[in-house]
């Protein structure tokens, strides 16, 4: 009969060694996850500054992000430029491994696809000199926004929630931001999407404005519902880019 107490430290040590040795082998290699020895990203390159197509190339924030992910994973990246209508079918028919195309997380699709963690929030933001950081602070003041836009729908919803404020519709979101910056028509704040706000503030570095999110539109990569390992690998690589600041550097490069 074996005296267990005598052997248990040895057994534990052996088990630990086994776990340490076996872990890398249990995790599939990059080429096992991506059998074409490349990462095939589906993209609708009609969405600046996230992805844009020229005659023979693609460029933009998501193109840089995808290439950086490929470097982290250790595989080359290939882009398949598709129209929006064809993105999810291309994923379904295994013509691409993942989608990276300014796609907000759509809860209705969860179950049929996997989303990575988000890499950008394109929601609506309230831009002002900092005096009016939230929508609730706008009562009795004036809010600029683009006529007919998503911002207008949000503005009308807020009109039913708080004391009235003046509506200042403009024909472009940049004009709405101009109104606030120049103090036109007593505009105290503007409601625009985060991309517009970041681009505008980059073009007007002398304007000491701040913005706060009013809604969230979270862009994430998408993989097929039968490929959780692809989502996990992309997610892990994205996390390292969060951690070391690479993602912020890429976003700042374009926005």
């Amino acid at each position, binding site marked *: 009969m074996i005296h267990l107490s005598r052997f248990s430290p040895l057994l534990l040590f052996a088990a630990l060694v086994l776990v340490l040795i076996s872990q890398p082998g249990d995790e599939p290699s990059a080429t096992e996850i991506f059998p074409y020895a490349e990462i095939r990203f589906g993209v609708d390159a009609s969405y600046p500054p*996230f992805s844009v197509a020229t005659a023979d190339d693609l460029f933009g924030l998501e193109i840089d992000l995808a290439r950086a992910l490929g470097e982290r994973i250790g595989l080359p990246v290939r882009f398949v430029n598709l129209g*929006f*209508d064809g993105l999810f*079918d291309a994923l379904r028919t295994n*013509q691409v491994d993942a989608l990276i195309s300014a796609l907000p997380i*759509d809860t209705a699709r969860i179950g049929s696809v996997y989303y990575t963690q988000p890499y950008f929030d394109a929601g609506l933001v309230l831009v002002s000199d900092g005096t009016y950081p939230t929508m609730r602070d706008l009562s009795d003041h004036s809010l600029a926004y683009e*006529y*007919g836009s998503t911002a207008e729908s949000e503005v009308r919803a807020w009109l039913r929630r708080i004391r009235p404020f003046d509506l200042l519709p403009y*024909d472009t979101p940049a004009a709405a931001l101009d*109104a606030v910056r120049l103090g036109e028509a007593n505009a105290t704040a503007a409601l625009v999407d985060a991309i517009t706000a970041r681009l505008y503030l980059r073009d007007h570095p002398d304007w000491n404005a701040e913005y706060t999110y009013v809604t969230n539109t979270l862009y994430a990569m998408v993989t097929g519902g039968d490929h959780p390992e692809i989502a996990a690998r992309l997610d892990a690589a994205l996390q390292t880019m969060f951690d070391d600041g690479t993602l912020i550097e890429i976003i700042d490069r374009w926005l």
Partner: protein
Amino acid sequence: MIKPLLSLLSWVIRLSLVYWVIGTLIPAPPRAALEVPDRVVETLHPQVCMHTRLIDEVEEWKIQRTLQLVREMGVNTIVEFFPWAYIERSPDQYDWSSVDRIVRHARNQGIHIIARMGLVPGWARQTPDDPRAERSTLNTLPLDSFDDFAQFAADFAARYAGTIDQLIIWNEPNLAFEWGYQQVDPAGYVDLLRTVYAPIHAANPNAVVLAAGLAPTLEPPGSPNGLNDILYLEALYANGAAAYFDALAVHTYGFTDPPEADPALNFRRAELLRDVMLRYNDDDTPVIITETGWNDHPRWTKAVHAAQRVTYTLDALRMVESQWAWAEKACLWVFRYPYPTFSYPDNFTFVNTEFQPRPIYYAVQAYARGWEMDGLLSLLPLSARRGGWGVRLILGEKIGSETFVFLPSLNSGWRQ
């Protein structure tokens, strides 16, 4: 023995009472009772038409609400998609209920339907030993299934004869995506038209078979993505398609150009398609523009600003009416989605998923119903005031739960 049973019974009764009380507190789902009498669309511009997306609605009241808003807009015709895959899930086993309820409410609201047909059920998509099986999509229609599709189209035509007489066969077959991610094949599409044409007419002698609207695109021959719509239409005629359709559906989008811009990949692309028809002596075949419009997404490269979208759309409708006698209808894409796409397609809509009309809804309504001379119901962009067009706010009017401001005339424009 009896005591525990009585105790159990008492608890069942108590829980049933609680369940009943909670049930009475939950609001009943909105009803979709038909209006009596049937409604009539009031319009001065009957060529204005809307493309709807009703077939995916789960709740019937949303179908009714959509069609009420379409009627109130002054639009008497819709294009609606009726997927084969939804209706004939097993061979020869039809479930018409989803079509019936749309037809019932459209008729009740005085709205005419043009049907678009496509989307292949799984059983017709491939055979088990077909090597393409893994890569098939809902748009994959093997040659072996053409007859099945024709039978479905004929049965549809027979069932709704007199109610739905205009049938569009397929959608944008010049795109690989719409042709099951296979190389596009004009001759193959002509075969499809040839297969369906006679059975549909046998089922409904008054049927109008429309050749599918083609996607506006510049894809060159051999492209894996698709083929230029002008070239594709040429190829259809060259392959003898003219004998197998009674009208041509046309998709023509403005993208970033105003409607009057020279014909290119823009609204007046319809004229280039019409030129092809004339070259093949097909003058008498009418055109129905089954998709058109502008998009006002803030980022998409093919979009315009919301204010431009309003102006361009109304100018385009005027152009169709005054200059394109060959075009019977101009159907705007798209009235409302049942669920948001969370991307630029949402910015083609006139009403959001919560039934909140966007400003363009009121603009087209004012045009269709002849209110244009009284002013556009809309909010005035401040830059228009700055721009020196001489327009000003003249009064506010409460419509529904929204207060709107009249502009003296849209013609003053917001174009920069």
